[in-house]
């Protein structure tokens, strides 16, 4: 099974001003735990280097 959303995060154009080689998203943030669990499960099975965190972690500056 693939997840096109996960692939899309991996494919995103690098942000302007980023050093070369930094492609794709590093962190995926959401307030929805079940959504994060599903995508993280697929990403990890695909050995993709994406970190999934909850928005509460962003708002509170941690833990990461």
């Amino acid at each position, binding site marked *: *099974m693939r997840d*096109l959303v996960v692939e899309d995060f991996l494919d995103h154009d690098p942000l302007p001003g980023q050093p070369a080689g930094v492609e794709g998203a590093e962190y995926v943030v959401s307030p929805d735990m079940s959504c994060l669990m599903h995508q*993280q*499960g697929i990403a*990890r099975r695909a050995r993709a280097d994406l970190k999934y965190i*909850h928005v509460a*972690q962003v708002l*509170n500056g*941690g*833990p990461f």
Partner: protein
Amino acid sequence: MSKEAQVDVAANAGLFILQDPVHEPMHDKFLWNTMQRRNAAAAAIPEWEELRKLASQIKEHTLTHLDRYLEEFESNATKLGAKVHWAVDGAEHNNIVYSILQEHGVKELIKSKSMLQEECGMVPFLQHRGIQVTESDLGERIQQLDGQPPSHIVMPSIHKTRQDVAKLFARTIGTDPNNDDPHFLTEAMRNNARPRFLTAGAGMTGGNFAIAETGTFLVCTNEGNADIGASVPPLHIASIGIEKLVPRVEDMGVFLRLLSRSAVGSPLTQYSSHFTGPKKDGELHIVLVDNGRTRRLGMPEFWHSLKCIRCGACMNTCPVYRRSGGLAYGATYSGPIGVILDPTFDEFKYSELPFHSTLCGSCSEVCPVKIDISDQIYKWRRVMAKKGYLPLAKRASFQVAGHVFAHPEEYRALTKLAGPAMEYAPDFLLYNKALNPWGRDRELPQLAKQSFREWYLANRSSHGS
């Protein structure tokens, strides 16, 4: 009279996914690409969100004054020579169409796409009475030849590969089974359908919109098949749901700018055709159909579904639909809009549909007329639960979950146990395909050593309360 069996949409989706490694990923990819084209088209219009708001408001205004606008439409259309009929339900619609065809001695009919006619079961009804009916839209014809209903409201055969179509055409219209080039297949259909346009005694269309101000109705296609069907045979019959009304000509600017961009990402369909009264030397019949729409109008939580302009954007954006294929839903309407419409046709039969969703809310975001689809899906779950339509296993597990979530100390105790349990449980149990479908394609989550709450209490709660 026995109830129609419940549609097991999850099982149907499973069959679609597991049939081979080709069909579901292809279906997923095509609709994802279509969604991305829609996103690009929407982003290119600075006033996109304002158009959505206007469209929603125009529809809400029309639906809260629907009797007035229907009478105005009827009056204007009749003045210009159209014959307007009214059908309470699908059966009456079919009878009206059949009697018009009989009066004119029509034995062959060619039609363009109409979800309403699909709803009414018109084609089998007419065929049983000896009328040859040909679908002229390529996707609909493919489905007709295969004895299947359409799976998507804009691309009816998008669940089929080109090889599927090639084999089907070879079987039914005698083409080369090994030539699966879409250009060849389209040309084959063009040549197969064209003679039927020329011999048909009547052409039928649906109606995307009906303008009260002028008695005009629109038919939007990319193939132009509706236009051939309306312009060649002398008799044109149009089936139009009563919710398709818009008040004024100027309103159409808003809707047409939204429709095709939402559907496939192009500014317009190749043909946006406006019919007002019969053509020269021709006859035009319009059948206005209720078939449950007035009942839906009276549902405070669900009447906004009547705003739908049948663009299909909700289907393209829905991760569940993309993987399930439209046929899994077992209904005329599939995808998110289907989930909120179908229970109004048969609550028990479609009681599983509201659970075939992640409630991600993307459908509500892309809907050009701002139907609160995701919220309505949730509300239908409440209806199904109250009516006792949930299967026993779900009812039981929801009750347990409800209890645990209502007692925070129990919740915390259970999660504290879950971490070590998962760490020490053997993989063959955790990833057992029968016991735990989750593990079939995903890694199970690793629970953190410290929960967020524990971290917060330790690090943040001293900063004010």
